């Protein structure tokens, strides 16, 4: 067969046109039915966030209250390794100087500096953990929750190096052997070799329930933890933040944390 340059160009052009049309036909075929997969009672938000009123936490709760931590760790089968180097934590306490190092003047009331501050994953808008994850196991959901797909996590711990809040824990050991609470058989455990963190109780939100820590706090009539949509000006959390002065952890890093701490004026002497 004789192939002139003109003929070759003509055939090439026809092929390119055909390939271009593929995209159009794909788009037409793909726009068929989209099934609803969310439950009717599921809670939804543009961006989930939390406000913690530390004064209420210290004053309304019973002395040394850690009901929220116990509820969270029992609900999610979080193991108690019993060793600080390998510990797994979703929600825990930290001193002011460690939680807010950039906001430390050194002249705070001494009692204030001794109090425990509740800390957890901040579900940052610019989450560094999600940016560095090589397998995209850590990702941002549309509602702002920073999630880990444990099926995809390879345990490289880049996310732990990237997280400025120490909010991620690595399973150095088989976690199942160290679960001290009664196993929640409706929620999975993790396995050795994956990183885990707070998931803002996305499994409970999907079933129309508020996070376990918030529920436990409300049960104690403490009301220190308020959860809601940060993008909705009418939400409880936004109203609270509009009425009170609040700080966030390490705001200078530009991660845009979603957990706010309300600091009410009080005498801690």
């Amino acid at each position: 067969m004789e192939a002139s340059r003109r003929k070759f160009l003509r055939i090439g052009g026809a092929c390119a046109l055909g390939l271009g049309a593929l995209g159009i036909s794909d788009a037409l075929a793909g726009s068929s039915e989209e099934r609803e997969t969310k439950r009717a009672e599921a809670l939804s938000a543009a961006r989930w966030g939390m406000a913690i009123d530390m004064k209420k936490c210290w004053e309304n709760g019973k002395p040394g209250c850690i009901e929220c931590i116990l509820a969270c760790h029992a609900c999610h089968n979080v193991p108690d390794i019993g060793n600080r180097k390998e510990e797994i934590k979703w929600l825990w306490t930290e001193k002011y100087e460690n939680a807010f190092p950039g906001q430390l003047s050194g002249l705070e009331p001494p009692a204030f500096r001794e109090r425990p501050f509740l800390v957890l994953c901040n579900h940052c808008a610019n989450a560094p953990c999600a940016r560095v994850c090589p397998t995209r196991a850590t990702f941002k959901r549309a509602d702002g929750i920073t999630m880990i797909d444990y099926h995809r996590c390879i345990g490289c711990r880049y996310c732990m190096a990237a997280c400025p809040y120490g909010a991620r824990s690595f399973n150095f050991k088989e976690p199942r052997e160290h679960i001290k609470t009664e196993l929640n058989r409706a929620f999975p455990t993790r396995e050795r070799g994956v990183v885990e963190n707070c998931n803002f109780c996305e499994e409970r939100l999907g079933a129309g329930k508020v996070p376990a820590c918030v529920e436990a706090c409300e049960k104690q009539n403490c009301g220190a933890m308020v959860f809601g949509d940060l993008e909705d000006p009418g939400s409880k959390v936004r109203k609270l933040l509009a009425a009170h002065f609040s700080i966030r952890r390490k705001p200078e890093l530009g991660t845009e944390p979603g957990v706010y701490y309300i600091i009410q004026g009080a005498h801690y002497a």
Partner: protein
Amino acid sequence: MKIYDGKFIIAGLVAFIGLATFPIWSNIGKASPLPEPKLDTPAIQQMEQKQCVLTRDEMRTGHMRLLDEWRIEVVRNGGRIYTATDGKIYEMSLQNECMRCHSNKTRFCDACHSYVGLPNSTPYCWTCHIAPREKD
């Protein structure tokens, strides 16, 4: 034609073929019985219409694909509800939905998985997901 050192070569060849085919002839006549995944759990027996999410043939050949789709939808898209072709609603959850009926992991899942030579830990569902309690 003469083969130099013929007896050594032929004896070596025979020994080699014998060893290389060892897995075949040592297993002749010892076929493992076909797996019989048990469907006699209390939850299944109570069902009027014994119907899984998909038809039996589709489940047999495609349960892994269905589980993979469910996993992606739940973990990455936050969806929880699956509508079957007959309009029935299922929660997309291995631990809470599949195992609610198939509460006999060792005699259902493991029956075939070990027949086809997958070790107990593969597919590694149960390192994280909690298998149902079984009586025996």
